[in-house]
């Protein structure tokens, strides 16, 4: 059994320790806000925060998350009140919306590290196929 703390809730999961955290979140805990995009750390859709750091959960072994604090999009705020979420709504960023949890988590972790505006953007090399990039830039430049 592996003990996890996700969004301030403790879980015990019985799973191959090499299972990527992404699939434990999605298929075992039912926390489906974190997305699968490529499985090879290229797209960023699976981004979560682990002990305040941005991580790609698609390649992060669940066993390595034991004893750490994992924050997913569901745990970012109870009511869409994180400044990044507010900026995303104000600028009407999402189209299909699939990559946005990863984008927002990357943005939030950069904010956590004390970065602002273009500094944050320079760390967000994520892929969006819909083309929300321009509005993400507008949203992030307010942060």
């Amino acid at each position, binding site marked *: 059994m592996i003990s996890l703390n996700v969004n301030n809730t403790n879980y015990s999961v019985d*799973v*191959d320790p090499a*299972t*990527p955290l*992404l*699939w*434990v979140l*999605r*298929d*075992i805990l*039912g*926390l*489906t*806000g*974190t*997305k*699968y*995009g*490529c*499985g*090879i*750390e*290229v*797209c*960023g*859709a699976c981004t979560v925060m682990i002990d305040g750091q941005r991580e*790609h959960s698609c390649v992060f072994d669940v066993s390595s998350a034991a004893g750490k604090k994992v924050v*997913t*999009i*569901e745990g*970012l*705020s109870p009511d*869409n009140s994180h400044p990044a*979420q507010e900026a*995303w*709504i104000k600028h*009407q*960023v*999402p*189209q*299909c*919306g*699939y*990559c*946005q*949890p990863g*984008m927002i988590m990357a943005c939030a972790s950069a904010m956590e590290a004390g970065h602002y505006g273009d500094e944050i*953007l320079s760390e967000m*090399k*994520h*892929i*969006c*196929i*819909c*083309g*929300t*990039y*321009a*509005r993400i*830039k507008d949203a992030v430049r307010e942060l």
Partner: protein
Amino acid sequence: MTMTTLTSTLPTDEIAATLATEKLNRRGFLKFSANGLALAFALPLLGRSDAADAAITTQELANAYIHISPIGTISLAFGGAEMGQGSMSGLAQILAEELMVDWAQISVVQALANPVISYTTGGSSAVSRRYTTLRTAGAAARELLVAAAMQETGDTNRDNFKAANAKIFYVPDAQIWWEYGELASAAAGMTLPADLRLTSPADFRLIGKPLPRVDIPAKVDGSAKFGLDIFLPGMVFAAIKHCPTIGGTLKSMPAKPSGAIAVVACTASHTRGSVIAGSKNAVAVVASNTWLASRLAKKMSVSWSLPLSTANVDSAQILAYAQGQLGNGVALVAEPTPPATYTPQTFAPVIQADVANAMGTPTIDATYTVPYLAHATMEVLNCTVHIVYSGTAPVSCEIWAPTQSATAVAANAALLTQLPTTAITVHTTFLGGGLGRKIEQDYIWQAIEVAMAVRKPVKLTWMREEDFGHDQYRPLGLTRVKAKLAGGKIQAWSYRTVSQSITAQRGRLKAGSVDSQAIEGAIHLPYELGNYLVEWVPLDAGVPVGYWRSVGASINTFAVESMMDELAKAAAIDPFTFRYNHFKSEDSRALATLQAADLLSSSWRKQLPAGRAWGVAIAQAFGTWVCEVVEISQPAAGTLRIHRVDCVVDCGTVINPSSVEAQMQGSILHGLNATLWGDAVFKAGVATKLNFNSNRVMRLTEMPAVRVQIIPSTNPPSGIGEPGVPPLAPALANAYARLTGTRIRKLPFFPNATMGGI
């Protein structure tokens, strides 16, 4: 304004039961009482002609409805697909306008397909083709409420009643007014007035305003449910493994790997083409989670029967064959249309002779090549199915799918399970991108087959490598254009395009007829071309092809607008001016769009720094004109930097300008990805680029500045999802030719680009 899955006041089962049996009246409505007022109607359908739509007013089953409950909840049932294009909001915006309610007072409910309340989303038609129908329906519901108020007062003068803010006001007495909810039940019993009084566009409160989209809050907190997010109690997880060689089939059933729950053979659906359809071309491994299923599937050794030849699924061989077909293939005339006095057979030689005569030696004779392209939706293909059994017999089937056609999903479920359609429920989830890929049924079939085999709720996922490797690709296209200039004007134009027909591959194209999608963007050009001929040569190849955002226009606009630029250069005339000189007088919208783009970009184009260049292209697709002007530089050999794209769009009446802007921004990115890097390559039947590391796309940090200007218009609305894609490729190639003197006629610019991790 909210987006809900189901509201408690909405008697969905009762409504569905009525809609499944009751026909529309001769005016195209079905009104009935169901915890308030339900007004059902039929939205125009994709693939059905305007004439057929005009005839749907009688004896048709409804595919949409409005519901107003006694407590005043106002809901629009949305039977389409929300894949990012904003149609869910756009439709509600139109309805709210005519219903005289505020944006905050209306809810959108994603309807179930069982199988009545749904339709296929595609062709950039989701909102534009439904504009009038929805306005009329909104007005009809409003007038039924007014009629109920008239009955209460006994006053039969319609002018004494005013609808606003979801209330009916009695004008002669300010003390008398009703909430819509108070009138809803009575309204269901009223007779629809003859005069439905549509709102004058000058009085629009909501149409044309950048209202916030209903789906966005759920898309920033992780609560939006895409297909991949469906999570059911007791569910199991399946990963698909196709025969890597397209056209190959399962030779023998592999043993179930240790750790797996099951292995299931899967059948190719009809959408994969008539040659492949019906074959067992994949197996699904079922396990306790998706990652485990995918690992087991990857490691599992499967023996496949490979096709005798893979020549027709090999990029190099297909290209060589297409080049031959360009010269020797049987060409079908796409335009001009033969006059009544000719048959197509006698017409072709005459027009060919006329064009050859006018052409003499062409000023330019160029062949433009575009490759197969994958869709690469961010959400991979997936489908969740729960079939309930009684003993060995299925009793009901419930499906959750990111699909552009819940109607087709329901029909396929009925076919595979042999259940009546009344026992089948399809939930359309949010789509993590559709782009034309999720109209197909291959992944749906597989999931149903797996659910039938394991008899548990199951979610089937295509891991990214399967999604790239077994797409239904944008067809490869080769186009040879010859044109003759005289005095700066085109006097002859010969256009011949070779491409695989999506329709023909599915056995639905009449032999000897032109596939209308293959020539989108090649005909009805806005230009005077002198003696001209547009021909299409069908290409018989085995790559499964499908509808990729903008379909044939993505092939042909590259050829047409590149050629226009080459001719402008040959004539030593500015590319804008050259186009102005060739516009047909009746194409005033093309002219106005180009002029607006000219003006919008003129300040920066006229003071370009050294080392930069611009390119322009304009095209119409799905009724919408789009012109794009691109600014580029080349920091080093083999690189390209896109600095900006100016975009002007004329899509007729605008429903939501913010959505139009977003769709243009998205189409431009889609065009950039395809033009710079997009290239699905097949070697001996096997797709070679299987993840984003070999399918380079633009990252956020690389995105150029995009400005979108919308031309004000009172014309009927036209599509916005796709028309922004086609002009990008030629605009970029035209800029590149201006910058470097080198003309790129074969896409992509950088065929072997890769991407690293982040």
